[in-house]
């Protein structure tokens, strides 16, 4: 127990040391607080400015007219997260070069309207990949699902899966061809439709125009490789023109 015993001198020394340490800590704390309050004031001004920019942007609800199912709410793990469509806030952000930094914002990007610059903001997408995605989208006429990103050369499946929570697809923007009105040449220009398929579709439409009233009958009558057809179908629409009826 003699290790824990203190003589009067030692007690005096320790109490002096403790007082000194506490005073230093207290002063340190006060100085830090002083600095942080001035910092905070500055930050508040900045935040207010950002807020003004942010408030001018109304977060619009996108109409999904042609969408058969309502879009599921995006699952975000963090509790205090707002989801905002970047198409809506894109313009002001670009003009003011400001990004809200105080709140955690999980920015969701709409694939069919995003520019390479928008895509570049996503983790894992560099300038090459994002421009490649846009190039592919323009070539095929838009993405009909997030999974379609996997078809882009150089995009790993794992990356697409990890990005999926930050992406959404607006199918209404898809470049669609009406099978009843499109010419054979127009059809064959579609990325997924071969010349042979275009010919086959046109022949079918010409011969059995009256029988085809829906997507299902079209698939049935066309009698084509279902795997290949599945890729094509999102880009086709089946609306009979009024005058032909």
């Amino acid at each position, binding site marked *: 127990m003699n290790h824990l015993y203190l003589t009067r001198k030692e007690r005096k020394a320790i109490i002096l040391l403790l007082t000194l340490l506490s005073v230093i800590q207290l002063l340190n704390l006060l100085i830090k607080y002083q600095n942080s309050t001035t910092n905070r004031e500055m930050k508040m001004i900045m935040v207010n400015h950002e807020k003004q920019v942010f408030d001018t942007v109304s977060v619009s609800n996108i109409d999904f007219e042609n969408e058969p199912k309502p879009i599921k709410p995006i699952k975000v793990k963090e509790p205090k997260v707002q989801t905002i469509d970047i198409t809506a806030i894109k313009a002001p952000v670009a003009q003011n070069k400001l990004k809200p*930094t105080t709140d955690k914002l999980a920015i969701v990007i709409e694939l069919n309207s995003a520019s390479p610059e928008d895509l570049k903001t996503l983790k894992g997408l560099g300038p090459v990949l994002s421009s490649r995605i846009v190039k592919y989208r323009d070539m095929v006429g838009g993405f009909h699902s997030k999974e379609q990103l996997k078809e882009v050369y150089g995009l790993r499946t794992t990356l697409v899966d990890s990005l999926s929570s930050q992406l959404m697809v607006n199918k209404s923007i898809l470049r669609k061809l009406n099978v009843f009105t499109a010419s054979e040449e127009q059809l064959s220009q579609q990325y997924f439709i071969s010349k042979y398929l275009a010919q086959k579709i046109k022949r079918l439409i010409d011969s059995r125009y009256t029988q085809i009233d829906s997507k299902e009958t079209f698939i049935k009558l066309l009698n084509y490789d279902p795997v290949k057809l599945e890729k094509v179908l999102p880009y086709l629409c089946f609306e009979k023109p009024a005058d032909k009826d």
Partner: protein
Amino acid sequence: MPACLLCLTFAIGIVLFDSLDIQLEYYQIIILYTTIIFTSLSCLFIYKYKFSCLVLIPIIMTLGLLRSHQNVSLAKDHYSLTQTEGCFSGRILDIKEKQSHLELKLKVDSVGDFLKIKSSGKLLIYWRTNQKYIPVGSRVVFKTNLLGFKENPNPSAFNYKRFLERQGIYHYTYLDQEELQLYDSEPLIFSGLFIAIKNRIEFLIENHVKRQDAISILKALLVGKKSQYLDQLKKPYITSGTVHVLAISGLHVGCIAGLFLFLLSKFKQSYILLKLFITASALLSVWTFALISGFSPSVIRASSMFSILILSNLTKKKTSVMNVLFVTAFIMLYTDPNMLFSISFQLSFLAVLSILLFQQSVRDLLPSYNSRIDVILDLFAVSLSAQILISPISVFYFNQLSIIGIFLSVLIVPLTAIILKTSILGLMFSFADFLTGTIFYLAEQLVVTQNTLVQYAAKLEYACAENLHLTRAELVFCFLIITGFYLAKPRLAPIIISSLIILNIIATRCLLNQLIKPSSPEVIAYKISNKIAQDLVTKDKLFSIWSEDIETKDYEFNIRKNQLSYDYSDHYIIPLSLLSEQDITFEWAKTKVLISTNPERNTQDYYNYVWDLSKSLINSKKKQSDFNSYSNIKQQSKLK
């Protein structure tokens, strides 16, 4: 011994804060500090030192608590309060080599995409090894989305999240080469000097030493470099309980300091200037060595102790080594309270404390013959006395207790000291190529001899008691017993303790296991990414139902520690492919479930099914061959 009380009480304050998870407001901290100041001042001036030591205890404890609160609470300018995604810039502090990637520790200095906001904090960057190497000290800028660490949900598993939080790291990110911009690759002038010295030493070792194992070990000894190859070499050292010689600590600092102490003792009082010069150069060389070797807690401890001792020697003050030890501990804990939870700090301090407390008593128990044999007996006494406080810690963290290490240290420690001194000599003569070559050849041969010796010792059957387990409560219990013995009879204590310690650990476990033995069987489902591993514990049997892709690494990190906490006599490993999922019905039952990642699997029916299957498997000898594929893992998880 004033520092003893100061340090111990301060440490208790830190532990209290950590276990109680106290959150204090700004004004509460100020009130507490003010109270401390007023109490201390009133003690000084009103009571005129007539107060008891007990008054000091709450004051020091509160100070410890406040200090660790200040350390843990995020600074007002911490980057995460501004943003966790966007632009970050900072300086690389440290690089750790891993199997397929590098772990870069970054000190953030500013954040913000367009407005640079001055910030603080640390974060981890995972960097693939095949990418461009970024040197320590370089300034980088990158844009990323930071991710938070996830806690390992498996019972008794190592909490990596907590471990990093104690170092002030809360986020990590993966970066590609094109995502990161290097601003200036030139490191700071001060640390650049140490990096240059380090590189020069590494270059000299690589140039003069031929064998790869000798290069790795010499680099570890001289500059504290850790490599993948060294990890393999370390295994026999760990088994034989001599791994402490590879970690730079008091032994290494002592080797350098010893030379200066020897010189100091030769000069008499009249040469004050010379004494001053030697002291200054000793301090310089010791701290240079500490900086080169990476500034680990054990090196800081050794260097600080040496500095205090040599300075007090200069001023002719009477010092006690124990007091110096506690003063050093207090200074280290005051600067970084989280250091208390570092294994390196704990082992380093307890080893020295143990030697100081018990060495003399242990030596008194050993006979003395002539001076030559006495040297060996002295070393043995040091080695044995160090084990007294180290062994419970070793069992708690590493689940093993090296028995041969106590005897082997008598040989290995002087050998390492000779290797160190030889290589330092080699470095000093680096201007003469031939001389350095010869000296390093000698060092290489010594390292090879040491390796062979250690490998041979590690292969001995009872070299190491493996698969031991201690809970936190049992660890505290062990220390209480040791303290009790020490306070009761300091002279007799060591021999009783050293023999009792091993018995104590095993007996406590057995006793507690008998008392708290699970009456109903338990199913433990481990969470290992996309792999299924479940343990079924009955009174004396353990069935492990694992999918085929469970690797030794998964077992070590997630399963082993929890399995060791159970007391079982038979262990069977059943490949998951032998079970069919169709038989499982989803229903909760009486089975006690500790943790579940697949709750639907923890059902009574499932348990019954596995039970029947295991019985049939054990009975039929034919199917037991299926277990052989797991021989590697099974061997490690063998019976205690």
